[in-house]
């Protein structure tokens, strides 16, 4: 490659440059800080840097706002190329590559992104094409760009560069072709090439496995990825299958458990039902026994009563018979008495008697009264006996009633106790419910308190964040309100200040004036920027730049120091200063740039601080947001807490600490169970009480009847019946005795009457009396008979009634029934406990619940079995096995490929080791090209240089010993680097840029290089950039050119930014 021409615009400090190069040695010289090194940068940028790369900012113009532009024309392989680049963002950045076959007319070859790729491909510097993974970013470097384009500002740049770090092998290949190494043996070369070919197919230059489609492992790697994906998918499905199967096993086990529990629940329910039925049966049996006994008692009572009634009827029957016979007798007697009366009357009629008729009559009357009274007493005695029987019956019933009442009372007590227990249990349940409610209420209140606290914390954080942001905003506003320039503006101002100072130093060479004027001459002198002052006519004055003499009557003489161009430059810089910098300082109210720079720095620091404060505030805001709870959630918590407080207000404070929710639930369950048991007991007691009450009621009715009957007897026969009976008995005895007395008296009286009268009247009276007695006896007998018959009828009716009742009662059957009932009761043991309906209902619910769970389980089992449709079973297992096998095989093949590549690498490394040991490599070839010149340069001190296969210069051999390159002096290193660069350039036939490359070389060796450069320049193009042209050029060459040496005055071809001079065309 050879450079032909270079045009630069707005490139760093260079405003414009236009340079044409010669074919051999080109020496671009000029003072420091003119931009010579920038020319090399421009060449590198044109050849290597993409136009939109961020590194272009380094080249942005210091003075103008225009984007940097470079146009480089070069020749390569017989064709002339022109690359034109404008470095800018986006579409403003442009690049074109054109070729010309005649050197004048150019045809576009590439543009935009394609330019850099084409350049890298054609130049073969070992830089990968741009774009894609691993492509270099920014300004790329390689061994050859470092060696040939002067990249890197230090010597170490070349000694630390080597071919192994290149992006591709183009540089190595170019050098290899040039140096024609490994030519000793074609078979060795073939082996190495073959090995490299196999390795390059699989690995990159940096030793990484290639992943592109051309890689031998690409297909197998893809296959492995696919198989791994399939294996994972099958594994997931197998896992899913196992999970489904495990789930089915779980469901099966759960089903077994539920079936067992259902069986247990069924048994429990059946047991409870049986217990309940047994209890009912037992109660029924007990009731049956009681009923049987009651009926038997009823039968016994009826039977006994029947006997009593029979006896009474018999007695009454006897009495009726007696009364009937008495009546008959009385009638018969009446007949007799009638007849006697009739006789007596006839007799009386026949005779009259007086005397004792009245006494007889009186005695007869008394006798009649006694007889009547006696009859009454007898009737009364009978009534008393009946009343006594009634009362005794009432007493017996009352006794039974008392017993029943006592039992009733006992049962009532039991029922009351059971109800009380139930009430206590209800109360306990209620208490427990309340406790649970209170616990829940407290939990709600606590949750609300926590939420409130959290929200308050969030609000506090948010407030802090807001304050921080406000403070930061205020501070930022204050800072931004300052009228300070930006970094680039400040940089330009600083550079301008520096240039101005330089220009002033250049221009301010100093002026000295001695005045020797006439004595009375009035003269004023103004020095530089100072105001004019009157001076003596004879005086000396000095100034740096300007001196103005105002002589009265003559005029003003202005003397200026410095060359015109320097002054012009100074003026221009001052103009720029006034235009660009002064307003800046004024706006900032600062009088110098140092202070301004300080202010800008302070502002930057303040803004950084503001940014930190803002960041902290945002972090607080995020933390606050993290703590925020949704408003509806807060409202709900508040409502729950309010409701909870209302609940707690109604409750008394607990005496002890609140138990846990689990303990409360457990207690609640225990209380509920106790309550159920108490309810059962209360129900049982209630049932027993009801039965006892019914019996008691029946007895009460019987007692009432008996009492009424007894009360009736008391009404009829008030007083003590025994006493009354005794009285009546005494009275009867008395009456009977009196009756006997009266009979004897009456007999005596009658005897007397008879004596007094003739028996007829007495007879008559007696007869009449007897007749009356007979009649009364008949009446009494009739009444007695009637009464007895009535009593008999009543007793018969009662007996019939009782008999009917008795007929309805089969005594034997009742006895048998009692025996049966009792035997049943004996055979039916009393259940160990009573079972309440609720308990059975609970057991039923539990059973139903288990049935429902079984049904749900059945549905889920079906659904899970259905999922087996989608998972694999044996088919899946086989697929998984085959996939695993295929994956194993694929990995094995990949391993074999890698193993084979490893073998090729080992072969290559072995060949290279042999190569090293026999010094057959690239570095050796290059070293040979350098060593001869090195030996001449150092007068034989250093005859050998060590360069490895990657062209890294590692050291020199001096006095038979190896010396590392780091041990060499800077001068030797720069000289060696120059020799290596020249050797590479010569081997490749390429231009080389040497930028102030011999700064520490002594004059003798400089002379050596001057000669060497001319020699090498005969074959390749060399571009030397230097501020000491004398090191490379003769005086004559400085003025003109030789056929192989071109002197380029940088001042003529290069314009720095801000300077008004036009670049001059080269001669």
């Amino acid at each position, binding site marked *: 490659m050879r450079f032909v021409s270079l045009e630069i615009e707005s490139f760093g400090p260079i405003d414009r440059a236009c340079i044409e190069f010669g074919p051999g040695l080109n020496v671009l010289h000029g003072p420091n800080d003119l931009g010579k090194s920038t020319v090399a940068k421009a060449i590198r940028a044109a050849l290597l840097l993409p136009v939109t790369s961020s590194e272009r900012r380094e080249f942005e113009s210091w003075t103008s706002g225009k984007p940097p532009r470079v146009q480089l024309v070069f020749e390569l392989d017989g064709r002339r190329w022109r690359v034109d680049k404008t470095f800018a963002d986006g579409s403003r950045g442009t690049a074109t590559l054109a070729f010309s076959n005649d050197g004048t007319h150019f045809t576009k070859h590439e543009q935009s992104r394609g330019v850099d790729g084409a350049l890298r491909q054609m130049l073969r510097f070992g830089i990968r094409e741009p774009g894609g993974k691993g492509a270099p970013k920014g300004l790329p470097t390689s061994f050859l760009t470092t060696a040939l384009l002067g990249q890197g500002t230090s010597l170490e740049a070349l000694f630390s560069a080597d071919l192994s770090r290149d992006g591709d092998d183009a540089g190595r290949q170019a050098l290899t072709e040039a140096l024609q190494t490994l030519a*000793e*043996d074609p*078979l*060795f070369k*073939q*082996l190495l090439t*073959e*090995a490299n070919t196999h390795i390059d197919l699989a690995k990159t230059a940096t030793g990484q496995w290639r992943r592109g489609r051309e890689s031998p492992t690409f297909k197998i790697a893809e296959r492995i990825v696919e*198989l791994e994906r*399939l294996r994972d998918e099958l594994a997931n499905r197998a896992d899913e*299958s196992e999970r489904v*199967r495990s789930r089915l096993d779980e469901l099966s086990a759960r089903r077994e458990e539920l079936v067992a529990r259902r069986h247990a629940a069924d048994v429990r329910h059946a047991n409870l039902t049986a217990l309940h039925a047994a209890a009912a049966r037992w109660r029924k049996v007990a009731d049956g026994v009681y009923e049987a006994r009651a009926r038997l008692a009823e039968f016994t009572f009826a039977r006994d009563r029947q006997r009593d009634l029979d006896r009474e009827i018999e007695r009454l029957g006897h009495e009726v018979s007696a009364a009937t016979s008495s009546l008959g007798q009385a009638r018969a007697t009446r007949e007799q008495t009638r007849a006697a009366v009739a006789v007596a009357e006839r007799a009386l009629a026949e005779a009259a008697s007086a005397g004792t008729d009245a006494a007889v009559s009186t005695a007869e009357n008394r006798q009649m009264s006694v007889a009547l009274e006696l009859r009454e007493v007898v009737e009364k005695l009978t009534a008393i006996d009946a009343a006594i029987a009634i009362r005794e019956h009432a007493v017996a019933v009352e006794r039974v009633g008392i017993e029943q009442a006592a039992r009733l009372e006992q049962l009532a007590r039991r029922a009351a106790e059971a109800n009380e227990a139930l009430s206590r249990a209800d109360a306990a349940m209620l208490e427990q419910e309340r406790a649970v409610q209170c616990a829940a209420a407290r939990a709600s209140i606590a949750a609300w308190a926590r939420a409130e606290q959290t929200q308050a914390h969030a609000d506090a954080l948010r407030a802090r964040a807001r304050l921080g942001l406000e403070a930061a905003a205020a501070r930022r506003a204050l800072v931004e309100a300052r009228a300070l320039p930006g970094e680039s503006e400040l940089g330009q101002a600083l550079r301008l200040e520096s240039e101005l100072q330089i220009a002033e130093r250049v221009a301010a060479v100093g002026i000295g004036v001695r005045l020797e004027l006439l004595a009375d001459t009035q003269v004023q002198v103004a020095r530089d920027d100072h105001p004019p002052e009157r001076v003596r006519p004879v005086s000396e004055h000095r100034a740096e730049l300007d001196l103005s003499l105002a002589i009265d009557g003559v005029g003003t003489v202005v003397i200026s120091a410095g060359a015109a161009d320097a002054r012009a430059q100074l003026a221009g810089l001052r103009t720029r200063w006034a235009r660009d910098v002064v307003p800046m300082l004024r706006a900032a109210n600062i009088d110098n740039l140092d202070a301004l720079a300080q202010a800008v720095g302070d502002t930057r620091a303040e803004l950084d601080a503001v940014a930190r404060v803002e960041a902290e505030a945002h972090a607080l805001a995020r933390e606050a947001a993290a703590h925020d709870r949704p408003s509806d959630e807060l409202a709900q918590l508040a409502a729950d807490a309010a409701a909870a407080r209302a609940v707690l207000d109604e409750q008394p404070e607990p005496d002890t600490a609140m138990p846990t929710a689990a303990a409360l639930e457990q207690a609640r369950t225990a209380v509920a169970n106790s309550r159920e048991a108490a309810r059962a007991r209360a129900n049982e007691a209630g049932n027993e009480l009801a039965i006892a009450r019914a019996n008691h009621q029946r007895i009460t009715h019987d007692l009432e009847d008996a009492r009424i009957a007894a009360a009736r007897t008391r009404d009829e026969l008030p007083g003590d019946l025994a006493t009354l009976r005794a009285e009546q008995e005494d009275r009867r005895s008395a009456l009977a005795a009196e009756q006997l007395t009266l009979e004897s008296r009456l007999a005596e009286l009658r005897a007397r009457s008879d004596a007094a009268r003739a028996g007829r009247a007495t007879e008559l009276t007696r007869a009449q009396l007897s007749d009356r007695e007979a009649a009364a006896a008949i009446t009494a007998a009739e009444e007695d008979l009637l009464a007895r018959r009535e009593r008999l009828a009543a007793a018969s009716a009662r007996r019939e009634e009782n008999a009917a009742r008795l007929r309805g009662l089969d005594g034997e059957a009742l006895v048998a029934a009692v025996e049966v009932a009792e035997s049943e009761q004996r055979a039916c043991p009393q259940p160990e406990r009573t079972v309440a309906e609720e308990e059975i209902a609970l057991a039923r619910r539990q059973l139903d619940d288990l049935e429902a769970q079984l049904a749900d389980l059945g549905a889920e089992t079906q659904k899970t*079995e*259905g999922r*087996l*449709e*989608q*998972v*694999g*079973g*044996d*088919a*899946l*297992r086989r697929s998984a096995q*085959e*996939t695993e*096998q*295929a994956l194993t*095989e*694929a990995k*094995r*093949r990949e391993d*074999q490929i890698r*193993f*084979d590549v*490893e*073998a*090729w690498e*080992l*072969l290559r490394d*072995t*060949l290279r*080791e*042999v*190569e090293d*040991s*026999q010094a*057959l490599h690239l570095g050796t070839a290059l070293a040979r090209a350098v060593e001869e010149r090195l030996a001449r340069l150092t007068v034989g001190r250093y005859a050998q240089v060590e360069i490895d296969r990657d062209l890294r210069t590692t050291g020199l051999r001096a006095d038979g010993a190896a010396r590392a390159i780091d041990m060499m002096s800077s001068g030797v290193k720069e000289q060696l680097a120059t020799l290596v660069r020249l050797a590479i350039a010569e081997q490749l036939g390429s231009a080389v840029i040497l930028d102030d490359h011999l700064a520490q070389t002594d004059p003798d060796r400089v002379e050596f290089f001057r000669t060497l450069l001319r020699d090498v320049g005969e074959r390749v193009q060399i571009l030397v950039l230097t501020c000491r042209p004398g090191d490379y050029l003769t005086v004559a060459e400085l003025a003109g050119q030789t056929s192989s040496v071109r002197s380029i005055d940088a001042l003529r071809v290069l314009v720095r930014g801000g300077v008004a001079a036009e670049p001059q065309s080269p001669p």
Partner: protein
Amino acid sequence: MTATEDDVAIKLLHTADWHLGARFPAFAEADERRLRQQRLSTVKQVLGLAELRRVHAVVVAGDIFDVPEPEESWWRALAQTLREQAWTDRQLFLLPGNHDPLTETSVWKDQRFRQGLPPWVHVVDRDDFVYSFGEEAVLHAVPCRRAAGQLDITAKLPAREPGDQRIRIALLHGQTLSIRGFANNFHIPEDTGTRLGFDYVALGDTHSLSIVASGKSTLAYPGTPEPTRFDETAAGQVVLALLSRRAPPIVQGQPIAGFRWREVAIRSLEELRALCRDDLRQTVLRIQLALRLAADDYRQAEHLLSELSGSDVEPGRAAVLFPLDREGLDLDTDAPPDLEGLPESVRAAAERLLALGQDPVRGQVARRALSHLLQLTKDARTSP
């Protein structure tokens, strides 16, 4: 009394486990394609045999496809193959198996496939499937409805009615072997035939031929007609069943496979040579190498292996070669190779590799590298 052809009331061709669409991921892409294509070719052979032997029916006991939803090209190809058979008095029964169960999304429910089947093809798509061969015989079948399960599908089979003297055939897919905790497929009790009164129980699932006779009842697995793995020792057959009312069934296997699967261990160069002399044109071959050879023999072995596997230019000796594991081919460095005539640098490299060949860690790589060197140098010395 043994049955004769005259006694035969019904002649069946019993096959199963076609696994159309099965993949062979361990093989190279081209070989896998051949293996997949062969499966349909073998089905055509089965149909041809059925026609040749004039069977009354072909029963396919499950796993016709490898997946329940095969690619369209597969089921279309099968339908096309069946349509190409001009059968008028022969029936064919397709039973869904556990690889291609009768699910809602399976090919069996795809009307495009079903309508493409000729009328003499019957898909068993219900649990009470029955087909009557006049008064002579009857077929009962129960399909698989899921890929895995524990159901006793024989529960759905009806027992022989009193007075039913017909030949009874059961068509099922499942396993007669039940291992505790491992039974994934449908279990079929071995006494199904005798217990339910079936003269012939046509089964599918096992890939190797198996015939179990029990009195008048026979239970058979024909195996897959085209092997799918190297360890299927008795695969590649179909079963011909001659069923009579008066005598026990005659059941025999009939080879049908297009490929023979063969796994060979090679321990010497001579064994390798002998293998190459065999006719392997219909063989799916897998070679286990255990060769440690001197340089010349190593090259010969490489050459023979290349012949077996073939190249882009010429086909290999084996119809299909399982990807070769070259790890079993090693260079014997105890017998130094002939380095005479090689340039010094090359010889130096060879000697370094030879020395490294004894290293326990890198020896194998070194021996392979040396084999490359020797091959290249041989090629260089033998080429003009």
